[in-house]
């Protein structure tokens, strides 16, 4: 097969933060100065690692498990669907998350915050989306923590998400925030997203239907990865 066409992925504009964002100090020496070069979508870009079940065990989706005891903090259920921009579920794709403990401390050697570590919390989760694109984690609500970006700087509570989708073009690393957090208007990372509506899409919703009585509060958050460019027929993705 020598003649074929590759249907490209859409290139959303104005969605992602700029590389050089003055409010975020760490970007100053790391943002490229040269303009990006347009890379047409060919075979390497429309394919990608299909990393599913072999990377994950069932307990990986429960961040409160796997330790001698229960972690401190507010137990939560975090669930939603991974979709593409055409509305199709992104099935059987790897989702990785990491976060602080309830006190706002990462289990990482470079985290110097004086808040305590929790011997019953590592803060790492993995799962594979279902046939409807759904993911689900059980964890505890992460805490806010100070950082040195500017005087009296605090990151709002957040959960880091890493998503593969099915194609190199769909790879996404982002952060999910909690509704009503008073730190959100002050956070340069959150506010680096240029469009206010885009910022809102990073905030989960409290959901009573997901909440389990006597056990855990529920939050829902859908994640949308780039889909194929629209065609006159608006066909579904390639699966």
């Amino acid at each position, binding site marked *: 097969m020598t003649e074929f066409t590759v249907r490209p992925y*859409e290139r959303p504009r104005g969605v992602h933060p700029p590389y050089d964002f003055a409010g*975020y100090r760490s970007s100053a020496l790391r943002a490229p100065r040269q303009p990006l070069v347009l890379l047409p979508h060919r075979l390497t870009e429309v394919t990608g690692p299909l990393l599913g079940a072999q990377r994950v065990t069932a307990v990986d989706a429960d961040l409160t498990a796997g330790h001698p005891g229960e972690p401190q903090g507010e137990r939560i259920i975090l669930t939603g669907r991974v979709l593409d921009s055409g*509305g199709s579920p992104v099935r059987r794709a790897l989702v990785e998350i990491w976060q602080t403990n309830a006190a706002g401390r990462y289990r990482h050697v470079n985290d110097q915050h004086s808040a305590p570590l929790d011997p019953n919390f590592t803060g790492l989760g*993995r799962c594979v989306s279902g046939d409807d694109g759904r993911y689900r984690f059980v964890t505890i609500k992460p805490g806010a923590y100070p950082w040195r970006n500017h005087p009296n700087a605090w990151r709002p509570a957040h959960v880091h998400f890493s998503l593969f989708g099915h194609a190199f073009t769909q790879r996404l690393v*982002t952060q999910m925030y909690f509704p009503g957090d008073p730190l959100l208007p002050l956070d340069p990372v959150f506010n680096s997203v240029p469009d206010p509506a885009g910022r809102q899409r990073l905030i989960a919703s409290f959901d009573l239907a997901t909440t389990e009585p006597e056990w855990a509060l529920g939050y829902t958050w859908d994640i949308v990865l780039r889909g194929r460019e629209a065609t006159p027929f608006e066909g579904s993705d390639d699966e």
Partner: protein
Amino acid sequence: MSRLPVTPSQTVGPFFAIALPWPDGPFVVPEGTPGAITISGRVTDGAGEPVPDALVEVWQADPDGGFNGHPGDPRRTGTSGFRGFGRCPTGADGGYRIVTLRPGALPCGDGRTEAPHLDVSVFARGLLDRLVTRIYFPDEEGANAADPVLQSLSLRSRRDTLIATAAGPGEFRFDIRLQGDGETVFFDV
């Protein structure tokens, strides 16, 4: 049918090592696999300093130019089981190292051919979105000269940032300069 708006990117931050490195991450194939090559290098910032908290990911075709039957490949080629994917966090010196097989050349579907290459994503604190680049091979002069992506770079000095250097038998070096002198070409993917 309306399109759904895409979820914005956020930085990977300084603490991704809790979750993203895998023990076998740098090994697209196990060390010692016949034909295996290593690609290593350093990630540096605009001051020339090492970036010790970056994550380098690679994605590539197998040696025959296949993608293990991936449904996005209209040819549906390859059943090699080749993972094609590697990820390596940088160390204190900004260094990373990937063990893999040489990718094959790839048809564009229109009669042209892409030279063997790896697609690369770089994530780091300070990067609000990933940076995307490509690794090409120095001993593929003919294929590189015909590669449409390399051809699109008119400045030789820019083009050359995408071509690894030979560092010994089966060993290649590919440094990633995020900003400033010799800045690596990054792509709008």
